């Protein structure tokens, strides 16, 4: 059944509309805006749920010339992700309404959260590369706003910037990669297209076209780099723990359940398209490496949310590794774990929020034995943490078992170094058990000082994680139910061949079962040694900068800041002549370099044959003389006057070359410039100062460069005098009277044929006027208010009555 375009578009657009309206909603509803958000999320969820049985692509055209359109593909994989995002969205909005009680800037918070949810739905359902990129970057933008929610806090701003730089930098890689795909599609599909569904349908032709143009490895590398930045894969994982300064509902929603999974989602989406030995080598290694490093760092974590953040990176690594293996089990592991991870990690984050809210601390060393005060929360945590650890029969076990099977099968086939895959996977799982138990220890064992009295959390805080934990239990008890409902569709969409997912508890002994047994038993055995483990890991983390990616980040940012400050003061030193020199010089150099790169033939040979009429020669000769006179003028008055001679000569040249409109414009503009010069002439110094020889040489060099650029451009771009008029020129000339009703072709082009260009130019003129108006206004205002600032610093905050 084909999906309904209206329903899908409404589901994606609804959160954006609500985001725009949220300041209004907040004014009416106050803190209950969260519940309104939940209603919006539920509406999107309900709309998408009606499409569960549909499969196909629908769209409307937007830029037909480039084959860009609003196009949505509804299949199991996109729906799984979209339903997860909107479903968890409902719970997070309910949770937020209680959790964000008494906070500032709630209108902005809900607007960003709603816009984020819309963007995620867009990423999940769009199948046009341009739209995927757009929504992808929108999620990064919303994440930036939400991480930086506490704008007064320096750490919050630093983390928001870091997340922005890393994920948007990844987004630029994605853009480059997607453009490569679009270029390859020209060879494979016979035309420039941004239609991802069509590319995947013709994956072999696409791969062949990419290989042929040598773009396969670059495109693969760029797309994987983009996904790695978004999904916090090593070595770009460092932004995720820093992002935990965001309010906890944001961490649960963006940084565990949805946004960080966008990278994984997209890898799953392009997996059938890019599957190759390079893909396996790159993606599987990246995933397993992240799985291990994330688990190690989670074991060493001392803060509940930090532990969960590293654990999220580790589990994202598991999904990436699953998609990396070119085997049926791999794709199944990735798709199924996407669901399972959301079902256990989101409640754990919400639990961490409850603990921080009620016990007042997030430090793991200060917390313990909380089950007495928080029995329901403890029960939720037991389900979620054991699922995270991959203990049978909890749902996390099934997908992890699939990864073990994939790793084992790949190693079994390839042999040699490939045996590292199962070994590393098992090691990471041992560590996963250790940190899962560590998190669970919050609720068990002895009470630890110095926590004050712990309150009972309200139902709005406990309800959402309880719903998710219940869902986790359902999937644990009857995994085949979830598979049949939606996961099978997701597996089909991401598989490279036929795949029939069947899950259940193992009935007989096999190597993957042995790996699971080693992971669980090893984890419990290693748990008492966690102190030593953590100390060792921290020594590694504190190593000098070369092995610490966040150190690299800091170095790059600070170096960029320093060098750009230096560069800025060199290029923009406040003197207009410096600006002109840089702009004209750089522009001419770029243009000349462009001509040289293209290697256009210089038409000098043809020029020799043109007879120049005497009148033209005289006019141009006078113009040249005037130009020399401008350069050697001793005062501004003579400079301005000789400059007008140059301009009027040009106007006469235009008349001789039968271009009356150009001549008129040139005359009028020349007159206006002369008048404006007269206005300001009194303010200018009457004579020039001494000119340094070095400055003279520099100015002469820039002038010659600009002149050369203009000369070469004219030679190369103007058709020879003997050439036939172009088809465009012929069209305009023939159509001016019947089509535009005017005999002045220039004017008809301006106001009729190409009126849209004229409109754009008018907007430029108007913008220039407004900009100058604003600049001049602000300048006087700045001068007027500067002394006041010094006298009386403005107190921040709005506390005054």
């Amino acid at each position, binding site marked *: 059944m084909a999906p309904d375009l209206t329903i899908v578009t409404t589901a994606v657009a609804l959160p954006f509309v609500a985001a725009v309206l949220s300041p209004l909603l907040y004014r009416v509803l106050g803190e209950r805006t969260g519940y309104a958000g939940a209603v919006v999320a539920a509406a999107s969820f309900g709309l998408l749920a009606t499409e569960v049985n549909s499969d196909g692509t629908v769209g409307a055209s937007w830029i037909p010339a480039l084959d860009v359109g609003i196009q949505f593909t509804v299949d199991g994989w996109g729906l799984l992700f979209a339903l997860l995002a909107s479903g968890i969205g409902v719970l997070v909005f309910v949770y937020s309404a209680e959790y964000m009680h008494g906070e500032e800037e709630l209108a902005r918070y809900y607007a960003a959260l709603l816009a984020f949810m819309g963007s995620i739905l867009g990423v999940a359902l769009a199948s046009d590369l341009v739209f995927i990129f757009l929504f992808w970057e929108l999620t990064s933008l919303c994440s930036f706003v939400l991480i930086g929610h506490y704008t007064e806090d320096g750490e919050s701003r630093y983390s928001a910037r870091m997340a922005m730089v890393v994920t948007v930098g990844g987004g630029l890689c994605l853009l480059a990669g997607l453009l490569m795909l679009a270029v390859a599609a020209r060879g494979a599909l016979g035309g420039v297209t941004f239609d991802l569904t069509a590319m995947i349908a013709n994956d072999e032709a696409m791969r062949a076209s990419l290989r042929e143009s040598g773009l396969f490895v670059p495109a693969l590398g760029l797309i994987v780099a983009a996904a790695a930045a978004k999904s916090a894969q090593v070595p770009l994982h460092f932004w995720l723990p820093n992002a935990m300064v965001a309010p906890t509902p944001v961490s649960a929603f963006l940084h565990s359940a949805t946004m960080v999974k966008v990278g994984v989602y997209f890898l799953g989406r392009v997996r059938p398209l890019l599957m190759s030995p390079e893909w396996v080598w790159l993606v599987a290694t990246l995933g397993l490496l992240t799985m291990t490093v994330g688990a190690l760092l989670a074991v060493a974590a001392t803060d509940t949310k930090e532990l969960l953040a590293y654990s999220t990176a580790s589990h994202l690594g598991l999904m990436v590794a699953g998609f990396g293996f070119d085997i049926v089990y791999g794709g199944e592991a990735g798709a199924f774990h996407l669901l399972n991870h959301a079902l256990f990690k989101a409640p754990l984050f919400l639990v961490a929020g409850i603990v921080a809210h009620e016990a007042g601390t997030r430090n793991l060393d200060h917390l313990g034995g909380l089950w007495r005060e928080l029995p329901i929360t403890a029960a939720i945590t037991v389900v979620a943490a054991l699922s995270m650890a991959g203990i049978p029969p909890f749902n996390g076990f099934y997908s992890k078992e699939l990864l073990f099977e994939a790793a084992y099968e790949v190693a079994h086939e390839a042999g040699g170094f490939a045996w590292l895959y199962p070994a590393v996977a098992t090691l990471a799982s041992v560590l996963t058990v250790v940190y899962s138990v560590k998190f669970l220890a919050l609720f068990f064992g002895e009470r630890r000082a110095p926590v004050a009295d712990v309150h009972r959390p309200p139902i709005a805080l406990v309800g959402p994680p309880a719903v998710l934990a219940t869902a986790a239990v359902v999937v644990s008890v009857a995994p085949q139910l979830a598979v049949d409902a939606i996961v099978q569709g997701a597996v089909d969409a991401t598989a490279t061949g036929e795949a029939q997912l069947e899950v259940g508890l193992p009935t007989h002994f096999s190597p993957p079962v042995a790996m699971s047994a080693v992971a669980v038993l090893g984890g419990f055995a290693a748990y008492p040694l966690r102190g030593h483990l953590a100390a060792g890991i921290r020594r590694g983390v504190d190593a000098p900068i070369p092995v610490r990616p966040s150190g690299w980040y800091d170095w790059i940012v600070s170096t960029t800041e320093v060098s750009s400050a230096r560069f800025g003061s060199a290029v923009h030193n406040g003197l207009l002549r410096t600006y002109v020199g840089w702009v004209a010089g750089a522009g001419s150099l770029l243009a000349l370099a462009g001509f040289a790169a293209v290697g256009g033939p210089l038409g000098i040979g043809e020029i020799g044959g043109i007879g120049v009429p005497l009148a033209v020669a005289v006019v141009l000769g006078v113009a040249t003389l005037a130009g020399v006179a401008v350069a050697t003028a001793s005062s501004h008055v003579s400079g301005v006057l000789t400059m007008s001679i140059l301009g009027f000569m040009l106007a006469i040249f235009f008349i001789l070359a039968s271009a009356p409109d150009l001549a008129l414009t040139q005359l009028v503009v020349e007159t206006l410039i002369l008048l404006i010069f007269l206005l300001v002439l009194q303010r200018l110094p009457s004579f020039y100062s001494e000119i340094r020889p070095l400055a003279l040489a520099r100015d002469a060099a820039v002038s010659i460069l600009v002149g050369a650029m203009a000369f070469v451009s004219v030679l190369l771009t103007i058709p020879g005098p003997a050439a036939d008029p172009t088809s465009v020129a012929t069209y305009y000339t023939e159509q001016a009277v019947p089509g535009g009703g005017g005999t002045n072709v220039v004017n008809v082009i301006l*106001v009729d044929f190409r009126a849209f260009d004229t409109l754009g130019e008018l907007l430029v003129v108007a913008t220039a006027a407004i900009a100058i108006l604003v600049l001049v206004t602000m300048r006087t205002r700045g001068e007027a208010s500067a002394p006041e600032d010094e006298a009386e610093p403005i107190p921040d905050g709005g506390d005054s009555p």
Partner: protein
Amino acid sequence: MTTTIMRTTARVTVPIVLVVAISLFLQGHNLPGGGFIGGVLTVAAFVLIYVAYDLDYLESGVLGREVASGTSVFEHRTVTAYRRALLAGLVIVLGSGFAGILVGDPFLTQGYVHIEGVPIYHEVELASALVFDLGVFLVVVGSLLTIVSVVSAE
């Protein structure tokens, strides 16, 4: 620059320049000219007044009104009028674009009709492009004069 020669010259030339500007604007569709050229020429005429006299002359000398002294250049009534001309131009340009949509044509479609039997001219062509060109004229006049008057007041 406010010499007698300058002022006398300005008095004689400005009306001629303005008439030429308007005729250039009106004949633009069939002969050299058009909204942009007409607009710039009009600006030149106004700048000539400005150079020969000052910003207040348009109000006090031409319109015979009292000039409120002491206001900054941004609140100056003449500058406000320039800004309004800019705004009106933008409205006309966009309006003429959307007018086509109302009758079912794409954005910015232009049309023309020939009217015959008009006294003196016998046959007159009315082109909707002239409305668009009027917008161009007003935008050019409004923005250039705003820039000139604000910047030179500095």
